């Protein structure tokens, strides 16, 4: 196939209405359309699977059939540009927000934003935790405290929504989803903190004050400035409680540029004898 052949094939993959490219055939002379359709199905189902993995709650909210149709529209509008599909689908929230068929669920786009943040958090860079002793030393020095700059984990994301996105997401993790959803008022504005801790990605609802505080820390503002931002957002802001929450969530990373991320594990020369045979023999 020359360049125009590949281009025609590419078009036919994305668009079921595109003509079947010339120069393709079947050994028995049969119509190649159903054979070409195998490739088209492969592409669509592979990308739909990626989106379904990234957006399981969106899929539950709209149902499998609606989601498949939404994914098909999205894949045609935004085909991947990179073979690293772990990062495919980041434009789905915006696509949902503009999609007429999805407009019946006004919170859907924000739930999608939350799930994209979870996807990014899952694969975000690792950073060593802030050692408890370092923080304890800083807290013991009230003069330096306001100027302290805390560093948040690279996986941390903060979302503000006019909808109860953290509660909606949490309800979909329950055994009885319908029962849990019945207790949620989707129209309640909510802030959500997304963060990877050990091997799981957490979703935590934050008060307005705490969200303003964390948002300021995200912008590398000093602890003093962040506390003022928290208070400005809500008179009920509690600095000690917010700091304790960040500690409990392991949201704080060691200060200063983290040491070079784990280099390739030791250049182990030869494996120990018999390691070919697996561990259980």
């Amino acid at each position, binding site marked *: *196939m020359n*360049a125009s*052949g*590949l*281009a025609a*094939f*590419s078009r036919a*993959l994305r668009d079921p209405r595109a003509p079947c490219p010339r*120069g*393709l*055939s*079947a*050994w*028995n*002379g*049969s*119509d*190649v*359309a*159903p*054979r*070409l359709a*195998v*490739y088209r199905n*492969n*592409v669509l189902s*592979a*990308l739909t699977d*990626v989106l379904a993995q990234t957006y399981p709650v969106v899929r539950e909210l709209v149902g499998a059939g609606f989601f498949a149709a939404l994914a098909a529209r999205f894949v045609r509008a935004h*085909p*991947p*540009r*990179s*073979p*690293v*599909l*772990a990062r495919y689908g980041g434009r789905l929230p915006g696509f949902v927000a503009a999609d007429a068929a999805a407009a019946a669920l006004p919170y859907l786009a924000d739930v999608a934003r939350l799930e994209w943040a979870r996807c990014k958090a*899952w*694969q*975000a*860079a*690792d950073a060593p935790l802030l050692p408890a002793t370092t923080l304890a030393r800083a807290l013991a020095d009230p003069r330096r405290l306001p100027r302290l700059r805390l560093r948040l984990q*690279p*996986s941390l994301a903060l979302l503000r929504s006019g909808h109860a996105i953290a509660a909606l997401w949490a309800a979909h993790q329950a055994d009885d989803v319908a029962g849990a959803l019945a207790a949620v008022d989707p129209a309640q504005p909510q802030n959500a903190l997304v963060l*990877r801790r050990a*091997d799981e990605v957490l979703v935590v609802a934050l008060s307005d004050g705490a969200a303003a505080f964390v948002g300021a820390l995200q912008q590398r503002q000093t602890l003093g400035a962040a506390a003022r931002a928290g208070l400005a957002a809500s008179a009920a802001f509690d600095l000690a409680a917010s700091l304790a929450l960040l500690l409990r969530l392991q949201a704080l990373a060691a200060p200063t540029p983290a040491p070079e*991320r*784990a280099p*390739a*594990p030791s250049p182990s*020369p*030869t*494996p120990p004898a018999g*390691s*070919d*045979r*697996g*561990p*259980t*023999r």
Partner: protein
Amino acid sequence: MHDAPPLPPRAGLGLKAAHLRDALAGRADVGYFEVHAENCMVEGGPWPAALDRLGERHALSLHGVGLSLGGRRRPDRAHLRRLARVIARHRPRAYSEHLAWSGHGGRYHADLLPLCWDEPTLARVAAHVDETQQALGLRLLVENPATYLTVDGASLGEAQFIAELVARTGCALLLDVCNVQVSAVNHGRDALAYLQALPLAAVGEIHLAGYAVDRDAAGAPLLIDTHGAPVDAAVWRLYEWVIARTGPRPTLIERDRDVPPLAVLAAEAARAERILARARPALRQAA
């Protein structure tokens, strides 16, 4: 990767996230685990960390789907750099890619697409294999494709094309026996004749998988390489034929859809292991 020992000539399993805990606990007695290269291209998190731990006890192999060796453009330099980082961190014993194209015009198609078996394509793919081998400092394994239609204009047979590619580039062959069966049925050709025309001495790894059966517009069987079913009886027969000629080769049970519990896949791996053991010279068994 020149210094990495080769994959052990044993049965291996494709690593699925659902099996990670069991795999880390050593609940599958397999020679190696294979991971998809593109899934490792993340900044951090649990997946690469788990592979670090798994790699301490098991040989790993790396299987790529995104290099588009048959594409018009030379291999994407950014992708080669990502591959080099993955290889430096996880130190796989082997890295394989497909004889296919998977992107065009800056789009990635997320599928392995068919090539024309002609001289210009051969020259292009050979150049891409050369460049990949040089950039990564390794001997690439190239996998024979599963295809559903014929691209007109071929001047070579598929097996001849592969033999010529191996001869020109010194790459190794990842022989996917399921793909052999799928393509043989889908193009009305003889699987054994195809295998006989391949450079079997270059086989560095074997893949086994299951397929689904569909029909083409004329009602002829059309096999779909789904990786979603147990290895088919016809594939086992072809595999035994191959191993009788090549001797033991690292053999992967591939399963990407409807993934059963690890023990079910381990049973298929054990079946491959028995076939490998029969082909193993007596002195190896005594050792």
